[in-house]
């Protein structure tokens, strides 16, 4: 996967270089908005190629593990659910499902964490910091 990642970063660098010209490289006797993107892009291409050569020499490297999608999906689900029941309750639901069904923790521990963690979040962020967390369309918490 090291090869794939370095190729991706090289392409990003190329994109930054191409776009930099449209932002103006030199304006009013000084570097314009495209100057820094150009330098960043060039460096990314150069060192991206260096890393790619390294990767080809090494041969094997760790491959992409689709387990990444589990925590990512879980957080996206929390965001979507928060639109309905609010962020704090969504996190409680997430904690319960994750601990009980993914980690297979004991019911006692699961319930303890499911209650204490959102409660702490509520006290710290809502009561103390007064952050207007999303309450969802049901507006419970």
């Amino acid at each position, binding site marked *: 996967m090291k090869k794939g*990642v370095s190729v991706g970063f090289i392409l990003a660098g190329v994109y*930054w270089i191409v776009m930099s010209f449209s932002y103006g490289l030199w304006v009013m*006797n000084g570097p*314009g*908005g495209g*100057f*820094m993107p150009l330098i960043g892009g060039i460096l990314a291409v150069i060192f991206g190629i260096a890393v790619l050569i390294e990767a080809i020499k090494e041969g094997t490297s760790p491959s992409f593990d689709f387990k990444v999608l589990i925590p990512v999906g879980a*957080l996206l689900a929390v965001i979507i659910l928060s639109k309905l029941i609010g962020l704090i309750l969504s996190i409680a639901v997430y904690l319960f499902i994750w601990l009980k069904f993914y980690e297979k923790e004991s019911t006692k521990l699961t319930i303890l964490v499911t209650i204490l963690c959102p409660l702490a979040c509520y006290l710290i962020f809502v009561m103390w910091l007064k952050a207007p967390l999303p309450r969802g369309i049901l507006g419970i918490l």
Partner: protein
Amino acid sequence: MGNVQLLLEGIGTALSFQNLIAAFAGAIMGLIVGAMPGIGSLAGVALLLPLTFKMNPTTAIIMLAALYYSNMYGGSFSAILLNIPGDSPAIMTSLDGYPMSRKGEAGKALFTASVSSFIGGTIGIIMLTFIGPLAAKWGLSFGPAELTWLIVLALTSIGWLIGDKPAAGLLATALGMMIATVGFDKALGQPRFAFGNVNLFSGVAFIPLVIGMFGFGQVIDMVVNRDNYASVSSKKLSIKESIVNKDEAKRIAPVAVRSGLLGTFIGILPGAGATMGAFLSYVTEKKIGKNKDQMGKGAVEGVAAAEAANNGAAMGAFAPLLSLGIPGSGTSAVLLGGLMMWGLQPGPLLFKNNPDFVWGLIGSMYIGNIICLIIAILSIPILMKVVTVPSSLMVPLISSICIIGTYSVNNSMFDVYLMIGAGVLAYLMSLADIPAAPLLLSFVLTPMLEMYIRQSFDISGGSLGVFIQSPISKVLCTLIILFSVTPILLKIFNKKPPVDMSEMDA
């Protein structure tokens, strides 16, 4: 002396009830976060940053700074007990710490680590007390051209640090630069790389990036590489059997003092952090130490060298941060982000304009360091419990803090998506062995670099001469060339670099 007077006032500020509690809370959290395998000071400071916005800046930084340096104490715990460094500065600690605990001397290793941390930290604070104001005075003679070079120096020494694979570190630096250029440019005020998304007009926000890469990135790593976080059976330790004897104390003291000095010096350099400090001190001790043959097999000297140095470096890193506004490491980059969000402008004028803040912080370090030592030693008997918190609990808890913490800063769900994306980016980078810390550092430094280059040209009317006019510029420029050419020359002449840095990641 004026500084002593200011320092005493600072200690007075730090001793206020509110600030004492903040230092105490920071120290305890730092120890816990440091002791848990895999979570470093960067993630700890990043996750806590949103909590500090309602505090006054002095209290906020006292808490975060305490978290940062007590993390250096905590990082040694899991290195010694489990052979898993809590964070990268503790890598060198495990070399002798773990063999010691296999010999049944875990308690002694922990005690040595705490005392050496204290000695190294104290040396670092004393040096900061005197060097900080001097550097700030010196910093006043820095114009935009000199600052440009200083930032370039910080950026190039990142690559120099990464050792035998500098390309990966420099690629991370380039990526940080690219991400930093998203959003309005200051020269013409046009949006760059926003892809038509209004949320990106003001650029990629700092907090989601940091929390994503270091908090959520950690979560992903825990889920994917579950086996690395396996817990072990616990055993009891007591303080009584941990205290070192007279002979050992005599062996530890000179090593700790030497390493503390070296570590602090390295911490002060822009771009070089605690990991580098611990590494060089350990290598030095292995070359010149009295007990060098035993190093690596469970010698107290090894633990002392690594721990004194990484604490010294953590303190030293505050000097360039406070006096020049240039962060020296990933964690101090986060602290810089914090300073700006609390409305303070780090740089030479900080000492002049906000003396109560700066000296309150420095004063609190003297007290915080003592608090850390006491808590660290008292917690030896219960440490096993902390280092074996199962990752099954940590994953959902850290994830929850990531979401709420990120959201609450700007009340923006877009930031949360950004945070998730940053976590995935960190995972992809880890697949290619690309370190994340240089990305963060260059993300913070690039906007400053862009501004200083622009200002330099505005002053000179477009002439390049401004960059080599002053003696300071010439010195910095020479240093940069030296730093970037030395590794290449060493390779060409096929000599081994003075130190082998293959095991370092940031």
